[in-house]
């Protein structure tokens, strides 16, 4: 159901504004309406005075600094976190926080920078180490040369001739005063070392650049070292980095234990204060008073009154406003349903919230959706497996409300699947017959059952659609919407007339019923024509046929169910043809796993569609705005 909402106006002296907003924020039951968008309050929108503007800028700046520092400090145990003892006034709080940050932040940032640099080095050095280790076998042929430069190269094997070109160029430049040694590094790469006089360094690097040869560039601290020395240095450095990183992390953990909990509290308070300051622009004002308009659940109205009396005093007035019908439609929407129906609110939200003052179909959905699901799946084993999977999913992803709601729906659907599994006598398709499970009603795999199955689904569809139309009539009556009332009543008459005509034509009713059936049809057509005159004259019969199509659409319950049972039957037969017990079990397992996956997905989508299109189309009015109370949102634990 939709929680009844009341619109309230709260008035008070401007000096009490901050305390009023803080009390409302803690209550989290009032959605503040923007006075600038509301025509009911002909007063100017409230502006922030200089003091509050200053506080807002300071709070934003401090919060940005806090967020940056909290991003650096590692999480700590909530029990060991030091809380912030909130100072008496806002000025003292901001000044205390500012001085704390000024004192502690440079040290934290310095350690964080050091840690980041060490992390980067720890990642990059092993790369050099790997490359140098590949080039190391080439070095024994080289001596240390004063005044010479050594360049390490890595070449794709396909372009090995570049080394000959380099040799020729160096010969021209140095008159044989150079060395090139090369060896295969792996199946695709050749490693090479080139030693040449430093005087021709620029020419050589230009040539390597033009030919796009990859040079192994060393970090500055390795410059001038031989490859062997560099490798030793890297190994020593990596050991040292690990020690320095451990020290940096320990220092940050100690700082975190001291500051994190305290600053988390401070950040929460800053966010709360900023939210209060931001919301002020949605209020209106007179010279001395503030005026706040908002929506509150009817049942929480007394709590709002009591909280404001207690925290602010009786000079703040809470007034419940009388609403016009148009204003009632603008009320925000809060769904509230009993536990078993609550998971189905998800499916309502996926579509769109119902408009305020209209019907919430969540409970009806909770009744029919698992029923349709179970009718389609209808297998004892699949139902049991789905309940098991839902149980595991709900506990494995307990922090995800969407997974929890879907799991609960699948568990309910699985329960109905077990019930219909006994009615159809299905356990992993037709395998149940082999172990003595016989249908309590009729087996779906039997072609002679098909007519009964089709009639049953059409009857269910007719009942569901008629229920939708009755709800539509009731809602239109309540809202005094005459056109909708005529239209839905016309469809209802037309549908009943068509059922009667079909029953008479198939000799299930006496021919004497033909006259009342035709009379109902004419009444239905007249009502439809009146609802949308003059187009209703033409569109009425089309609407009526479309409603019959809606009823026939429920045949999908039989169709999906048959596809499920036939796929299971195919799996069982193929398993029987394998000629080997284990192979048969594997094949049957694969088929049934596929069927179960399809059996969880397809009936969900089709049940959903039957509700969204066939059922909701008869009465549902979307366009509701979710209730979003002013409060403490998005705050996390240390």
């Amino acid at each position: 159901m939709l929680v009844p909402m009341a619109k309230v106006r709260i008035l008070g002296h401007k000096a009490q504004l901050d305390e009023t907003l803080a009390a409302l924020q803690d209550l989290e039951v009032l959605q503040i309406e923007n006075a600038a968008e509301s025509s009911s309050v002909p007063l100017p929108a409230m502006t922030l005075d200089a003091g509050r503007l200053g506080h807002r800028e300071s709070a934003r700046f401090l919060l940005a600094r806090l967020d940056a520092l909290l991003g650096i400090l590692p999480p700590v145990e909530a029990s060991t976190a030091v809380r912030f003892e909130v100072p008496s006034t806002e000025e003292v709080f901001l000044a205390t926080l500012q001085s704390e940050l000024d004192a502690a932040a440079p040290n934290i940032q310095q350690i964080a920078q050091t840690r980041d640099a060490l992390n980067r080095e720890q990642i990059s050095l092993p790369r050099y180490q790997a490359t140098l280790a590949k080039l190391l076998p080439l070095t024994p042929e080289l001596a240390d040369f004063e005044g010479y430069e050594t360049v390490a190269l890595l070449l794709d094997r396909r372009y090995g001739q570049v080394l000959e070109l380099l040799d020729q160029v160096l010969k021209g430049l140095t008159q044989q005063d150079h060395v090139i040694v090369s060896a295969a590094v792996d199946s695709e790469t050749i490693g090479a070392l080139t030693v040449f006089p430093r005087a021709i360094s620029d020419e050589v690097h230009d040539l390597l650049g033009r030919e796009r040869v990859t040079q192994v560039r060393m970090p500055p601290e390795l410059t001038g070292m031989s490859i062997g020395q560099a490798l030793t240095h890297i190994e020593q450095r990596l050991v040292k980095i690990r020690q320095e990183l451990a020290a940096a992390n320990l220092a940050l953990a100690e700082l975190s234990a001291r500051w994190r909990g305290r600053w988390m509290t401070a950040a929460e308070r800053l966010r709360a204060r900023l939210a209060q300051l931001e919301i002020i622009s949605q209020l209106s004002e007179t010279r001395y008073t503030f005026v706040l308009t908002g929506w509150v659940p009817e049942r929480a109205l007394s709590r709002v009154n009591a909280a404001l009396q207690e925290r602010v005093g009786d000079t703040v007035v809470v007034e419940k406003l009388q609403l016009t019908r148009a204003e009632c439609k603008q009320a925000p929407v809060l769904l509230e349903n009993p536990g078993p129906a609550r998971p189905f609110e998800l499916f309502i939200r996926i579509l769109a919230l119902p408009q305020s003052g209209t019907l919430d179909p969540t409970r009806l959905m909770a009744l029919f959706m698992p029923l349709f699901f179970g009718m389609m799946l209808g297998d004892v084993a699949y139902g049991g497996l789905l309940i098991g999977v839902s149980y595991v999913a709900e506990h494995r992803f307990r922090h995800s409300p969407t997974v929890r709601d879907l799991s609960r729906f699948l568990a309910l659907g699985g329960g109905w699947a077990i019930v219909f599994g006994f009615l159809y006598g299905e356990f992993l398709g037709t395998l149940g017959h082999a172990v003595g499970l016989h249908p309590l009603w009729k087996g779906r795999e039997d072609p002679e059952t098909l007519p009964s199955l089709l009639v049953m689904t059409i009857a269910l569809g007719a009942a569901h659609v008629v229920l939708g139309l009755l709800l539509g009539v009731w809602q239109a009556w309540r809202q005094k919407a005459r056109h909708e009332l005529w239209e839905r009543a016309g469809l209802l008459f037309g549908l009943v007339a068509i059922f009667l005509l079909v029953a008479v034509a198939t000799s299930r009713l006496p021919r004497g019923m033909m006259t009342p059936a035709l009379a109902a049809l004419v009444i239905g057509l007249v009502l439809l024509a009146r609802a949308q005159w003059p187009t209703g004259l033409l569109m009425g019969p089309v609407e009526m046929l479309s409603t019959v199509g809606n009823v026939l659409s429920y045949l999908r319950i039989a169709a999906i169910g048959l596809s499920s049972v036939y796929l299971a039957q195919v799996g069982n037969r193929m398993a029987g043809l394998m000629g080997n017990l284990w192979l048969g079990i594997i094949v049957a397992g694969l088929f049934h796993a596929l069927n179960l996956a399809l059996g969880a997905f397809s009936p969900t989508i089709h049940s959903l569609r039957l509700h969204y299109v066939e059922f909701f189309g008869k009465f549902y009015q979307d366009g509701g705005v979710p209730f979003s109370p002013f409060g403490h949102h998005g705050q996390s634990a240390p």
Partner: protein
Amino acid sequence: MDVGLLAIGAGIAVGITALGTGYAQGKIGSAGAGALAEKPELAGRIILLVAIPETMVILGFAVAAMILLILSGQG
């Protein structure tokens, strides 16, 4: 009537409507996927739009069932 011809008729009734449904769902689904990338809150409406053409194949199934049950009974 020849059972084979009835079976072919039933197959055509389901097959052609299934092709029509598939074509429509393909078009709606691709547009829906694009819209969903821009506005994830439209998921419910897109499911609804994608599901609408399925009525065609369900009606095809109804016709096929009638062919097999009613006409074969008369034959």
